């Protein structure tokens, strides 16, 4: 059982470039999330989705976009990469019963130079 799969694991971008971070889960979870993790700052919610076709902003959505066309996939797009977006990005998912554990992928380490 793969759980939550994130690709790529590492990426270096130049300022102004764009890219899509991929996230897929095979647990048939309705809820999916994107977080960024910066040293000493914990996990900050970027965007989340409660089901296919439904997305909403989290705490730090600026500079990012998401889409949710299927239950399984929840890609995160950076349109104009900025140095402030250098971070480790985690995707997570959870089931529809209240307070179920969030299952995390192993992250994408992104550097913008």
């Amino acid at each position, binding site marked *: 059982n793969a759980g939550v799969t994130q690709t790529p694991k590492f990426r270096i971008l130049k300022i102004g470039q764009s890219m899509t971070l991929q996230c897929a889960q095979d647990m048939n979870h309705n809820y999916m999330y994107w977080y960024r993790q910066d040293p*000493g700052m914990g996990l*900050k919610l970027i965007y989340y989705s*409660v089901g296919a076709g439904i997305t909403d902003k989290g705490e730090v959505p600026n500079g990012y976009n998401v889409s949710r066309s299927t239950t399984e996939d929840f890609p995160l797009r950076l349109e104009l990469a900025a140095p402030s977006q250098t971070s480790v990005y*985690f995707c*997570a998912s959870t089931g529809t019963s209240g*307070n179920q554990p969030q299952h995390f*992928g*192993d*992250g994408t380490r992104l550097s913008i130079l």
Partner: protein
Amino acid sequence: QQQVKQSPQSLIVQKGGISIINCAYENTAFDYFPWYQQFPGKGPALLIAIRPDVSEKKEGRFTISFNKSAKQFSLHIMDSQPGDSATYFCAASKSYDYKLSFGAGTTVTVRA
């Protein structure tokens, strides 16, 4: 602002010692308090969770203590082992709310 405040930022403990991590929250609507453990290069994973109807929950060497009146909860790692070296995050949410508010994390190093 951070809805859940966590301390310390890091701690070092000898093998066999006790590690204690503290968290405080402001939102009295929070009623689910999980702890996540993260190893280097991996995503966080649920370690243990508590609801405010109990003051303590124990799973193996890990214990959560909860003080509702003080709006504080803590994680105790008993008989700490080198394999416990990781970053620990506390979190909080409201019942059936699918969003978690995370603390800033505590890096625990257990020296052999």
